């Protein structure tokens, strides 16, 4: 088990700078998730950690040991690939044993570890099959098993669930977390799926355009997104963004969405304290509202948000409402216990708004 420390890591492919100075530290035994949209550099970062690519600049340290220029096999890592990358010509047993054999472990040790892992992952029945004769989920487990059998200091996962169907994905996700809780091995997990990121991570790194945009626990990142990008990337449905201005209100500032006359308005009073930056009336802001942060206004309560539902979808426990505030389309979620008809005029209170600087995207509150 090691801690991972990365400083000023850069990676250039020809003219393209894929990673532009990444700093991150993963505590010993933590499950770290690198998340971000495609092309953000998260897979490249993982391959650099694995040693499959060479860094252009910067350093990688495993528990104080400098590994930046070491070959993968000298780093004591194991990796689960998106395609699983099982050896098609070897049986499951030999796939599991491969890494141990390459490291020259004794035969008895190999047999014991393979049995252990097979039992742990329920692969006992499959040991003599070739990968071609396995289902997707089984292959995934073999790939996991191959990594676990090695008992490496660091586990690397490169989108290991993306080739599974939705039901299996949820189940394997839980399995992966359980394995980690049992082994407590430091893990780095790359995904573009925010649900995986939120559910698996002890510490989460949101990457955007080759930089770490925000780090923290999933709850922190979700509640206090540092930038408009992070706020928009995490959460489903995504956060609604509306152009707005700050105006003086009864008890301080009010954020009001700039709308035309054609119905719908948003006007939220801001608390006097707890702001990230000093705000002044007249400033332009981007107002962010998470779809789940709204509730119907109580009798006599002044609504923050009014709009007309243009489309209502029932998703079991909740309703997903599509509407417009001015030109901007918004999506809102409310409990399904109160039916809402299409075209109905909604009067809603907003429990939490986020404010972002419209030019830099940095969070203001």
């Amino acid at each position, binding site marked *: 088990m090691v801690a991972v420390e990365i400083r000023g890591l850069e990676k250039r492919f020809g003219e393209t700078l894929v990673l532009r100075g990444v700093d991150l530290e993963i505590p010993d035994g933590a499950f770290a998730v690198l998340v971000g949209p495609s092309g953000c550099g998260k897979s490249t970062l993982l391959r650099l950690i*694995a*040693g*499959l690519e060479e860094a252009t600049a910067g350093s990688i340290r495993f528990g104080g040991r400098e590994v930046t220029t070491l*070959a*993968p*096999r000298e780093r004591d*890592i*194991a*990796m689960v*690939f*998106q*395609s699983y*990358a*099982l*050896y*098609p*010509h*070897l049986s499951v047993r030999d796939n599991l044993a*491969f*890494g141990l054999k*390459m*490291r020259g472990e004794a035969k008895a040790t190999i047999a014991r570890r393979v049995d252990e892992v097979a039992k742990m992952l329920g692969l006992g029945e499959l040991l003599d099959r070739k990968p*071609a004769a396995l289902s997707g989920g089984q292959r995934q487990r073999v790939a996991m098993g*191959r990594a676990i059998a*090695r008992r490496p200091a660091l586990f*690397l996962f490169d989108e290991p669930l993306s080739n599974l169907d939705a039901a299996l994905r949820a189940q394997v996700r839980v399995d992966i977390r359980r394995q980690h809780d049992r082994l407590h091995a430091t893990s780095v997990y790359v995904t573009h799926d925010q649900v995986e990121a939120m559910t698996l991570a002890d510490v989460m790194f949101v990457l955007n355009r080759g930089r770490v945009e925000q780090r923290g626990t999933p709850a922190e990142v979700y509640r206090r997104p540092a930038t408009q990008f992070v706020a928009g990337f995490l959460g489903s449905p995504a956060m609604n963004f509306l152009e707005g201005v700050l105006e003086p209100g009864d008890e301080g500032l009010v954020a009001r969405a700039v709308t035309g006359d054609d119905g719908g308005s948003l006007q939220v009073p801001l608390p006097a304290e707890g702001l990230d930056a000093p705000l002044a009336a007249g400033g332009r802001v981007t107002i962010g509202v998470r779809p789940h942060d709204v509730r119907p206004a109580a009798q006599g309560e002044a609504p923050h948000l009014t709009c007309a539902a243009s489309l209502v979808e029932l998703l079991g426990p909740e309703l997903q409402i599509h509407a417009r505030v001015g030109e901007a389309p918004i999506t809102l979620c409310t409990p399904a216990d109160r039916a809402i008809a299409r075209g109905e005029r909604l009067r809603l209170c907003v429990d939490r708004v986020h404010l972002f600087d419209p030019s830099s995207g940095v969070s203001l509150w």
Partner: protein
Amino acid sequence: MRQATGALPRALALALIALAALLLPSRAGAEEPVRLWHAYRGVELEVLEALAGEFAAEEGVVVDTLAVPYDAFAAKLSSAIPLGQGPDLFIDAHERLGDYRERGLVAPVGDAIEDPYAFTENARAAVRLVDADDGEALWAVPIAQKSLALYYNTDLVQGPPETLEAIADVAANLPQGTYALAYEARSAYGHAPLLTGFGGFLLADDGSFGFHGAPAVRSLELARWLASTGLVPEDADGALVTSLFSAGRAAYAISGPWLAADLEGDAGPRVPYAVAPLPKLAATGAPMRPLLTVEAVMLSPRGAARPIVRALARRLASAAAAERRQTIAHSLSARRDVPAPRGDAVLAAFAAQAELAIPMPTDPAMRATWEPAHRAIRKVLRGDATPTEATEAARRQFDDVRRPPPPATSPTPALLTLGVMLLAGALLLLRRARDPAARAALRRSLPAYAYVIHAVIAVGVLVIAPLLVGAATSLFAGRPDSGAYVGLGNFVEILSARGGPLLSSGSFYVVTLVTVLWTAVNVLLHLAIGISVGLLLARPATRLRGLYRVILILPWAVPSYVTALAWRGMFHRQFGAVTGLIEACNELLGTSIEPIAWFARFSTAFTANVATNVWLGFPFMMVVTMGALTSIPRDVLEAAEVDGAGRFARLRHVTLPMIRPSLVPAITLGAIWTFNMFNVVFLVSGGEPDGSTDILVSEAYRWAFTRGSQYGYAAAYAVLIFLLLSGVTRLTGFGRGEGGR
């Protein structure tokens, strides 16, 4: 579908009508055209075309001339004439007459020769064949004659030597690197003048082997002396004689009229030369007498019956025609009444030589003398055997080749078995046909049959029929003199090594062993080199790999016989590139490596063959490897890297096992190709030394084409090769679908 099946006969009928329409008008002509085959090119062809054209115009008949490659002449004649398709008359070398007569391809010329005494004595003798009841007839009309004669470089020597041995006196005055004499020492044709100088001959009058006994031994001793004293170059063939003499590196050369043609440059001859008849031998005082080939017009039995054809033959052999050939094409007349043109000293010398030459025997047994004689000569020149041993071995080989065919047996048992099998098959089909379920199934699949029928016909005609004909041929004696059914007699002879020791040189078992060794060594090297190069070229880091790829595929793109001939030249003991390298190495590094006589020993000859074939064959494995490598996902290799496998371990445990499925069929194919790689073996080592590097196919070829046309015997070899290969591929599992994943 009913429509489609109905359309087929209609289309067939239309095609037949169209064919008939094309053929009928040509049948309606007054006189059938006269068909003339020849192997002429260049000036000789022009003269022939002119003569034929004039004849056609005067007689009002169409003369179709067709150039047929010399090597294919006999095969084309024997397949065309019996079907009434061949030429009415053809021009060929007289020594094939005996063979042609045996196969019924020629007929006596009758009045095509009006006055036999118009031709030289030798030419007359050449075309005169004695038949079974001692009657004599002329079987061809002589038109030209060719033999070896002595060329000499007038810059280097004054004139012809008194005797052959006297060239040693000349040698001392020659510049460094110049040979006294160049002659085709490695061939029996080139050696024949020495033999005749001692009173010997290749074939006795009774058809037995002549190249043994005192004259043969003495002639070989003389040849060995010439080579060992450095008077003549080693291991010389016709091309070397030509190149040495035309480069001024040989004072004398023994060669035919073709050398004069080769010496002709754009502005006069490339070296100043003159020609004289061959000298005497000091040992016997008798002249060296070369073998004479008479070019003659031969008449097919059908052509001989047509007066117009005989008239054309007369015209082609007339004095006027001979004169034109002499003045325009420089080909020596076979007529007494047409002397060499005044001022053409070369032709005059050849004419004088022709008087002294010995017409090549027409006996079909003559063809069987060459190979044993070649081997004996080469063995003696290499010093592997004494002349006596070598000639005795040659006689045994000749007798082996000329042994009587296996006794004819009754084909009844075989026919009976075949009949019973056919009957059983028919009954089985009948039973199937009565089964309603099978009939329904058949009816359902009729459309499918319609789709594959053309492929079935093509495969049947192009693959299966030749295979069956070949297999059937192996059951017959298949010789020009006997086509009797011999059952498994050929196989018995092959498998019993024709009564000799089973492991004697040239026996089926030894040749099979050599073939297996040849295949194994080649395939292993193909694999090792092909995979290594394929791996190197597949590395993205390799610079210019597109260029390397093209360069490395080139050996594959060059026709294999071209490669084989080039490599054969490189391995020449005295003039090859390999020897050049050794000499350069000796000069630069001060080493003293002896040039290697590559074809003198089995090991080196075999190595030379293998080197050539490896060069030819590795690109195939390389291409297969490169293709297979692209199918290995990158992340599997990366997984292995992360799992701790180094470069070599990745190759051994991941890359090689993963390309194996693609390599297995390639190895099977490569093994079959190598097993049957005729070109390299035949052209590089040619079986040397003493047939030891021959593989099964080249051995089969020799039986069919250089040992008196024993087609049945050769076909039996082919059947055995087929059985061996199909057995082995079956055993190794290829074709049962295990080649794949």
